[in-house]
């Protein structure tokens, strides 16, 4: 199936992660212009090292630090021009048993992941509303519904972020701005890769998702073909969370 896209510009929040970079490359191949966000020089360098030689001029980068609300105000207006797509990969890392959590860390974690995200989504949804066109895909996790010990804050944050996206779809769907959250299972990429190195076993191995499959699904969800999905969470985990 050839995917059609009625827009051109896509913001990839958390664009310096492995999947973000891979998605950006696939977007360019489908004639989309990705804007990859990074939170520091290390992230920017990672993007450039994977993208610059082969894709020069076909992508942009943008500073967006989830621990600094000011970076939202620093986003140039040009970044919002004709912005049709948003893919959100960002999730800070804080694993702790609930009973053992540090209050300050919990506060920072939710400030970064929820307060910042809400402010960013306000800005982006308004820009999309002005164009009466926008599509957002939030990359969530099956941990939002089936977390492991130590993932309580991660799960809470994922569910809360899903709720923000769901409501944007509910509120602005009739005005052309729609959303979907993709709850991915175990992906052999980024944080998942580290977990899998320590916990791999044969049954789990069979449930692994490849980075290519997840990014192709994201592209489909962004495409015109998927416009019927709105304000909903989809699970992509090879059936992992359906069984015991």
């Amino acid at each position, binding site marked *: 199936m050839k995917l059609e896209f009625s827009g051109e510009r896509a913001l990839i929040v958390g664009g310096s992660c492995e999947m973000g970079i891979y998605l950006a490359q696939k977007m360019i191949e489908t004639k989309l212009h990705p804007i990859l966000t990074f939170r520091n020089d290390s992230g920017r360098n990672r993007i450039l090292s994977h993208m610059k030689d082969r894709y020069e001029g076909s992508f942009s980068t943008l500073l967006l630090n989830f621990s600094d609300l000011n970076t939202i105000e620093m986003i140039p207006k040009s970044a919002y021009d004709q912005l049709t797509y948003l893919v959100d990969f960002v999730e800070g890392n804080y694993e702790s048993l609930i009973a053992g959590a540090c209050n300050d860390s919990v506060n920072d974690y939710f400030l970064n992941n929820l307060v910042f995200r809400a402010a960013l989504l306000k800005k982006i949804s308004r820009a999309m509303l*002005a164009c009466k066109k926008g599509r957002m895909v939030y990359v969530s996790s099956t941990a939002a519904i089936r977390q492991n010990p130590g993932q309580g804050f991660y799960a809470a944050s994922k569910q809360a972020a899903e709720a923000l996206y769901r409501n944007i779809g509910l509120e602005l769907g009739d*005005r052309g701005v729609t959303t979907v959250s993709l709850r991915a299972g175990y992906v052999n990429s980024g944080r998942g890769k580290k977990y899998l190195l320590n916990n791999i076993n044969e049954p789990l191995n069979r449930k692994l998702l490849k980075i290519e499959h997840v990014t192709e699904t994201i592209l489909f969800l962004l495409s015109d073909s998927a416009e019927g999905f709105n304000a909903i969470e989809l699970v992509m985990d090879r059936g992992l969370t359906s069984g015991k």
Partner: protein
Amino acid sequence: MDIENLMIEILCDILDADASEITKESYLIRDLDAESIDLLELAVNINQQFSIDVIEDDLFLRQLRLFIDEANERNIDLSTYLKTKYPFLENDRIAEIIADVNLGPVLKVKDLIHYVSINT
């Protein structure tokens, strides 16, 4: 295009209305059935079309009833108090609002026009 005509054009687009149905005296909510999502879209469009930062609580008089209560509780002259809160409204319009407030949402098209005029 002047502010009034552009504002009416924006409203026609958002509310799916005909320009003949909208005048400066039209109430946004009472007459034109604007809903909260319409007001959000209106604010976004005003921001974009007139290149001004919109404070939606002010533009849509959202805290009007709160300010009326505050003025009454503090025994302050209501007209004077509302003028401090909504400097873009003229004195005559504030008097109109005070007389009208118990009949329903008071926001009119002309209030939007005044807001934009003051801020551009």
